[in-house]
């Protein structure tokens, strides 16, 4: 065997252009890093300022009072909006997920190729419809219908805990807000699901069908298991978007600072719409509290997004293997 051959230090001499390139690209990347990082840092800083003032009550409290003036009682607590954000988004995902998966399957496996191409474009476009249009449509078109549905649900299925209400007021409920969000996020979930479904190795599908399976058997036993994590990831992305939605909720939901877990009953709201509602007249101290709320929202969405990305990446990696 070779006795102690010494490794040479290979000096890769960089030409000057490459040094310039490294400088430019690194500073560009760091600039975006600084811009994006400073938002996180700024929110974090403000967040801690308010957390230290309000304590844990900022998360658990249900009042938003005062402007932070000398000698004034100032209480900021975002529990109703935090709960509202989660309730609204969960309703949205629960409604959108099955419909989106069905639509994705339809587009990928049932629609004729010409229609499929059109539908894929429609999906992309639907994902980019501005939220103000979703909000106005929700307010003027969906809301009146949804109030009727909520009434029927309560009337016929009111014994079921989910559809119980204390008083028969149905307008501006989490249910209605959740439906608008569902319409909003379904293009994303559909797109991601379809993307993952389309990566199913065709030989697997062919294999299943060669064994005598109908189209559905192939979907049920091959496509869905294969795309499951992609679908979950898509749903999480949708959840992330639903959590941060502002204008649609602002317009459709009756924003009330009170925890409401009855999904058919009036009153809810999410952090984003609360910020929109309050920032205009917020005193400098209140703005800090809003930034702290933004920080909480940011952390929640961040967690959801990171999980989603991990899941989607996992499934794509699996697909590419």
């Amino acid at each position, binding site marked *: *065997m*070779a006795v102690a*051959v*010494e*490794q*040479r230090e*290979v000096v*890769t*001499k960089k*030409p000057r252009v490459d040094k310039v390139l490294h400088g430019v690209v690194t500073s560009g990347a760091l600039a975006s890093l600084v811009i994006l990082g400073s938002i996180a840092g700024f929110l974090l800083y403000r967040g801690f300022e308010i957390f230290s003032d309000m304590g844990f009550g900022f998360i658990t409290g249900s009042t938003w009072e005062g402007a932070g003036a000398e000698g004034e009682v100032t209480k900021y607590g975002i529990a109703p909006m935090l709960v509202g954000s989660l309730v609204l988004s969960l309703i949205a995902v629960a409604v959108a997920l099955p419909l989106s998966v069905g639509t994705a399957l339809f587009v990928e496996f049932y629609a004729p190729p010409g229609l499929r191409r059109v539908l894929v474009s429609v999906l992309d476009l639907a994902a980019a419809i501005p939220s103000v249009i979703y909000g106005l449509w929700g307010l003027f078109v969906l809301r009146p219908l949804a109030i009727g549905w909520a009434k029927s649900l309560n009337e016929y299925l009111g014994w079921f805990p989910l559809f119980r209400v204390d008083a028969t007021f149905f307008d501006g409920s989490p249910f209605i807000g959740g439906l608008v969000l569902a319409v909003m996020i379904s293009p994303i979930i559909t797109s991601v699901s379809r993307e993952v479904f389309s990566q199913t190795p065709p030989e697997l599908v062919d294999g299943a069908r060669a064994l005598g399976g109908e189209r559905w058997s192939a979907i049920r036993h091959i496509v869905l298991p294969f795309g499951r994590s992609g679908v979950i990831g898509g749903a999480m992305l949708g959840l992330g978007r639903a959590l941060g939605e502002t204008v649609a909720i602002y317009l459709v939901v009756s924003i009330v600072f009170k925890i409401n877990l009855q999904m058919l009953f009036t009153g809810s709201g999410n952090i984003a719409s609360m910020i929109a509602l309050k920032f205009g007249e917020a005193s400098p101290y209140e703005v800090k509290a809003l930034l702290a709320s933004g920080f909480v929202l940011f952390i929640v969405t961040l967690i959801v997004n990171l999980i989603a990305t991990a899941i989607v990446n996992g499934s794509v990696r699996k697909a590419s293997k």
Partner: protein
Amino acid sequence: MSSESPLEGTAVTASGVGSAMREVETGRDSRNLLPSGASGLETIGAHAWFGKHLAIEDVSLRFPKSSVTGLIGPSGCGKSTFLRLLNRMHEFIPGSAFAGQVLLDGRDIYAPEVNATEIRLKVGMVFQKPNPFPSMSIADNVLAGLRLARIKVSDKNMLLEDCLVRAGLWKEVKDRLKASAGSLSGGQQQRLCIARALAVKPEVLLMDEPCSALDPGSTLRVEETIVQLSESMTIIIVTHNMQQAARVSDYCAFFLSEGGPGRVVEAGLTSTIFTNPVDSRTADYVQGRFG
């Protein structure tokens, strides 16, 4: 052409610590046959690592000018790694390391003051899969090296034609030089890549299994091209195809890893390696008994 070589039978040796060292017919260290400072490519005790893994060990070979050397051996024996040592592409792999010397015209290409970019201009490379630049036309692909390395040329059109002619592609593409490189067949693309490598006028051309992705017809065209090119430059070709090695190369080096790092078992005239190898493993390999 091998029979006409002035350095016949003596040009390539393999010497290795612990490997079956074989002095060629003359019985002398062949490296000394080349006058000092003479042109040509030579490695002395080359080692290559990927992280902690030693991939090739103690390879000393000499590649004389205007010859074709085939690097043969089973998969994973370090041929390609060795090839990439010769134009400093090895160092692109994170965690890679190197020991020994690679001399180009007597100059150590790994010396600290040497610019790797410059070395790669002198030692061109053609890859396993044809990889023309998809964003460029056929003509732009051929001249890409000039633009990338910022070399000024007085008559681009002549160079373009010259390169394409030498790569054996001119007749097929002369009417559509502005077409996208993606429109060519696989074999044409590979010859385009050869033309592209020629445009920067390298002294040495490294070819890493240039025909493995091609059909037999295209392979033949590329082989013809290689033989023509060898008149003017040093060519080192990695191949898995024994017939190809026999057809195009003047010299051969047989690499083998046997579970450890890759080493050169035997090197010499192609005719010798194929008809009368010293090492039994070489004989087994060239006759298709393993590998």
